[in-house]
């Protein structure tokens, strides 16, 4: 948007903004995005002095293309290009897992990273033993990661997604099979520099895990949590704990924090127009994503914020954000909290497109359906009532785009509600219920019952 156009808009918005308790004057002197290359911001790991870029490269959302036998494979060329750019611009933390991208992520990361000196970046990967988790297969998975990533040590190694099921689940996957002792030995041998865990779950489950740290049963070098301005105070109720609690607990113990889902799978890069207008009113040229990143980076115990960057556009924009990093002020944090409250008003599905639920045994494209629905809600382009202006147009747009996005046989009406997906969802989304909700909505559209 041109500056002049923006000024007009901000004038129009001024009334609304005044009501929201923010002075219109501020809008006028909101700083434009900085020019020039800037410099990547780094955080120091107080435990070992690692100098980590505040933004880390999440390797879970790389672009996929059809491979020689029709399967989806990672676009290695694009990955190489992005990794080169990232390293050239100071990003030095790369987070992957043997489970990501149908198991292809580590290998692609290994290919791209091994073209650079090993000491110029930190590698984080995980023991993703969700399936068989006996000692042998867990160790096999651990060893395979070295090969895939073409390295002989991991800077950061995580017990992947523990929390759900509490300490019992943790003991089952890591203690009873002797893996924790094995990993500690590996750490002593220098093949793991930092041992931590990534967490999804409820407050009591986190308390139990951090309790191990307090009782010296287990020392956590770092912890990876989901944090963003929505989850700060508005995580989804009972099954997921608010990030402000997690942050405070970890901060208290001096444990460095790595952030995942700072944008909720990209949803916070593309927020509903009413919210995005308020963001732009404050800073005409700052993206919604940059606000979300700055929110996380404002908290000093945060070591690194992971972003699953899918293409060069996203990467270059993020590099810009972190090369001119400005923490939020107290007032701005309050503003983001107001935005979070507004955001929660929208009937969105809390899906971050991580695809842990896939493949659905019945062939449903779960994340695809949620993504399509969420984008329609976010864009405000979904029909809500037959009385609505443009109802016919919106209805057609929704139904046609739905068929385009999801093959008919993979749509929500084929979800039988078997619940296989439930235990896989880090967000604890009641997936069948949400699919059925969307199915009912589509049915109402088709039958004109809205």
């Amino acid at each position: 948007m041109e500056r002049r156009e923006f000024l007009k808009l901000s004038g129009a918005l001024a009334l609304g903004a005044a009501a929201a308790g923010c002075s219109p004057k501020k809008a006028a002197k909101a700083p434009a995005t900085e020019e020039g290359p800037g410099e990547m911001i780094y955080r120091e790991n107080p435990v070992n002095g690692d100098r980590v870029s505040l933004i880390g490269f999440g390797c879970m959302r790389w672009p996929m293309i059809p491979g020689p036998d029709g399967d989806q494979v990672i676009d290695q060329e694009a990955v190489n290009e992005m990794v080169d750019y990232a390293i050239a611009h100071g990003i030095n933390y790369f987070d992957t897992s043997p489970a990501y991208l149908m198991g292809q992520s580590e290998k692609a990361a290994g290919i791209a990273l091994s073209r650079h000196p090993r000491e110029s970046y930190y590698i984080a990967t995980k023991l993703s033993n969700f399936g068989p988790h006996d000692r042998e297969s867990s160790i096999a998975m651990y060893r395979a990661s070295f090969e895939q990533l073409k390295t002989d040590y991991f800077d950061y190694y995580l017990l992947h997604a523990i929390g759900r099921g509490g300490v019992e689940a943790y003991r089952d996957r890591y203690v009873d099979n002797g893996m924790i002792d094995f990993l500690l030995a590996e750490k002593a041998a220098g093949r793991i520099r930092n041992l931590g865990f990534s967490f999804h779950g409820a407050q009591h489950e986190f308390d139990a895990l951090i309790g191990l740290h307090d009782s010296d049963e287990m020392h956590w070098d770092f912890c990876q949590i989901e944090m963003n301005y929505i989850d700060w105070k508005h995580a989804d109720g009972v099954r997921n704990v608010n990030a402000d609690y997690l942050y405070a607990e970890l901060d208290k113990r001096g444990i460095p924090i790595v952030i995942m889902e700072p944008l909720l799978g990209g949803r916070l890069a593309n927020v509903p127009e009413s919210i995005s207008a308020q963001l732009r009113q404050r800073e005409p040229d700052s993206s919604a994503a940059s606000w979300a990143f700055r929110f996380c980076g404002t908290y000093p115990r945060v070591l690194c914020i992971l972003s699953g960057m899918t293409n060069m556009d996203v990467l270059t924009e993020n590099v810009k954000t972190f090369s001119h990093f400005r923490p939020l002020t107290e007032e701005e944090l309050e503003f983001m909290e107001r935005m979070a409250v507004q955001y929660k008003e929208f009937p969105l599905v809390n899906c971050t497109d991580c695809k842990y639920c896939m493949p659905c045994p019945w062939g449903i494209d779960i994340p695809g359906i949620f993504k399509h629905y969420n984008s329609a809600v976010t864009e405000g382009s979904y029909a809500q009532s037959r009385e609505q202006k443009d109802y016919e147009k919106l209805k057609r747009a929704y139904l046609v785009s739905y068929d385009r996005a999801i093959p008919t046989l993979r749509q929500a009406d084929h979800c039988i509600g078997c619940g296989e997906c439930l235990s896989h969802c880090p967000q604890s989304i009641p997936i069948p219920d949400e699919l059925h909700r969307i199915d009912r909505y589509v049915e109402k559209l088709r039958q004109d019952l809205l």
Partner: protein
Amino acid sequence: MLKKLRITFAVFFWLGITLLLLDFTGVLHLWLGWMAKIQFLPAVMAANVGIIVLLVLLTLVFGRVYCSVICPLGVFQDGVAALHHRPRKHKRPYHYKKENKWLRYGIWALFVILLLVGLQALAAILAPYSAWGRIVQNLFQPVALWLNNWFAGMAERAGSYAFYEHVVWLRSPPTLIVAATTLVLVIVLAWRGGRDYCNNICPVGTTLGFLSRFAMFRPMINKDKCKNCKACEHACKASCIDLGTHSIDHSRCVTCFNCLDTCRFGALKYRFAWKNAKAEPATPDDGRRAFLTGTALVIGAAAVKAQEKKTDGGFAPIKDKTIPEREVPVTPPGSKSIKDFYRRCTACQLCVAQCPNNVLRPSDNLDRFMQPEMSFERGYCRPECTRCSEICPSGAIRPITREEKTRYHVGIASINRELCVAEKGTSCGNCARHCPVGAITMVETEGGLSVPTVDPAFCIGCGACENLCPVRPISAITVNGRYDHLSD
């Protein structure tokens, strides 16, 4: 002048009906639906007295205008013949032929018998409008759909919703073969002999021929002015002008007016014939106007294959559904009973062409060959759709409203408990969740499972349960037809 008028109307009707048969958007029938309803045989089947009287009167007054203007197959043949006899290419394309009475009336008698004994399916093979319907639906609609899908691809790239993709699939190979054979036969006959099909085979042509003998207006030869140049005879694609006797067989004349323009001596006039009069001939045919490039399209369409979207590597594969055994066929809501439906249906494929849910397809069963039936591998009879009932020209599917739809119990769902996943302990209930009339209830078994049960009193046979059943290739819940659709 009359010829131009005839051609104008013919093109109008032909385009209208063909577009109606090609249309898959469900918009055109609002404007063009009537064109199917004024077709002769469908009107007879629908016992649509108004239309029949109108067509009879039309023929009694003007002759077989129906054949040269309203009948799409007739117009198509004129197009083929015109393509062959482009102006000045053939000086004498046609000659007088004697009426082949045995063939003509023999087929007509056979046709009537077939109708009377209830073998509509066989009779329908001969019916001209239905034949055209089959040809367009089977051979041309796929081409239209592919074209649409190409546009849809472009639209998708442009982020527009103007076009969207439709699945192209082969509904019935035998029907495709019949349609292709009919098309080839009609093209060959028209290429070689003009209206040979209409005057030897077509039962509607023969029927109207009984009337057109006595038409109020007919082309008449004035013997006195006629110089016996035979121009008119050579121009007559019905081969019904005999200059030996200066007579015209009006039962075979399709009132195309080609002869009138050819007579340089003013011996031929289309005029009031109920008081005695005479008439006569002229010069070569300048039949023009090519209607379409039939053959090219046939070749293209012969390769009809089911085109489906590909699945991604990260997804569980989904097997195609196959058609379950149905003791009684399922016919669309709006059909009163199986009997009534098959008695009236002329197998024109208009409903098949229009069905937006990929439910209707022509039957391969010889009893009801090419007449439509429902099946639910690709979709189900959606509660908000009444399109087939709106367009059916023969009254086989009577017009119903959305609300009336639930009054028609066209089938009953039954459950194969050996296949049902709920019986094996998987939480499902997708059939119950999607039954539009609430006929399926999940009940607790003694073993604590929640399994579906069907209340036959409520089931309307729409096939939602069968279509959405997760069990493949044969669904665990399938619909069987009912004989009588309105009894509760």
